[in-house]
């Protein structure tokens, strides 16, 4: 076995590459003044793909060795309970309207993606990958895998969805003449998960806290509603 081949089968190589790609992407994002299209996850994925293509390494080889980083998604998903708990404590006053709005948004997100997708001729695995697109990436990937979608495609779709929601938020609310940071936060949290929440924090602290809660509730609701809605729609 030549040295390059043994390096290819050494996890350290791909763990280092993945960390380096993310650090570089994060650096570019901060340097650009948090420009939405330079989202660090999106750029990081592109950097990994380009490296693998240049080095002629098949994706399966890479993923096999980078599994350790992938595994950390699971405990990180469990860890989402902590910010969710903290945000719940802060929002008890308008719990009713909040729950109704998040439910309406959650159902709209799933149903519109599935119906539009079917109308535009997306194939079944792609359609199933789209259904959980508005929830935070770790939950969306787990839901996609469970429903029979393609988790990698879901990861890409979810991130781009977050970016689109973050870009549309302010012009849309201005057009609707809604000037309420709570509404802005909840809308972008339901439609655009963590990336939307980052945008909401730029609007105000209030918008950010509401967005974080809406994102958490939406993750939970979508997990419960998705199997049901898919059974009705498909």
């Amino acid at each position, binding site marked *: 076995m030549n040295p390059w081949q043994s390096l290819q089968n050494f996890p350290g190589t791909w763990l280092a590459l993945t960390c380096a*790609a993310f650090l570089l992407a994060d650096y570019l994002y901060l340097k650009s003044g948090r420009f939405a299209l330079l989202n660090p996850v999106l750029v990081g*994925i592109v950097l990994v793909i380009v490296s693998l293509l240049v080095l002629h390494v098949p994706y399966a080889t890479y993923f096999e060795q980078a599994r350790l980083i992938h595994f950390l998604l*699971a405990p990180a*998903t469990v860890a989402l309970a*902590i910010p969710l708990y903290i945000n719940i404590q802060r929002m008890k006053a308008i719990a009713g309207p909040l729950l109704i709005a998040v439910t309406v948004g959650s159902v709209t997100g799933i149903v519109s993606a599935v119906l539009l997708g079917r109308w535009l001729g997306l194939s079944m695995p792609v359609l199933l990958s789209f259904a959980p697109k508005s929830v935070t990436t770790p939950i969306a990937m787990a839901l996609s895998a469970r429903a029979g979608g393609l988790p990698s495609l879901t*990861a890409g779709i979810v991130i781009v969805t977050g970016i*689109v*929601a973050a870009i549309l938020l302010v012009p849309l609310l201005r057009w609707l003449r809604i000037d309420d940071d709570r509404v802005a936060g909840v809308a972008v949290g339901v*439609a655009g998960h963590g990336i939307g929440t980052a945008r909401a924090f730029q609007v105000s602290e209030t918008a950010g806290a509401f967005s974080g809660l809406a994102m958490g509730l939406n993750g939970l609701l979508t997990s419960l509603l998705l199997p049901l809605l898919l059974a009705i729609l498909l």
Partner: protein
Amino acid sequence: MLYGLAVILGFLVAGEAASDFLHLPLPGTVSGMVLLLIWCLIRKGADERTAQAATGLLRYLGLFFLPAGAGVMALSGLLREQGIAMVAVLVLSTLMTLLATALTLAWLLKRRAAHKDDAA
């Protein structure tokens, strides 16, 4: 850090077990999140060391998506065939979600404020 991480991993295993044995529609990771949330609600506060480990993990959440996310490179054929339809679905559906959520909440909050004024 290690204690908090162990607690989180414990909830992860409990969540996987709950989803498997009870045939829940939730993925095991989400069940684990719900169990940890319930634990916080019962003890009326997040355990300090667990919260620290959670914050540590979530700070690098973005990194954890890269190995799976790079999997789109294996789907380039799919993207070529259905890419344009995908972008259309994504933008339209996101717009509808934002609209539906914002209009519902704005309406409900306005109604509630009006009720309060009536009472006063």
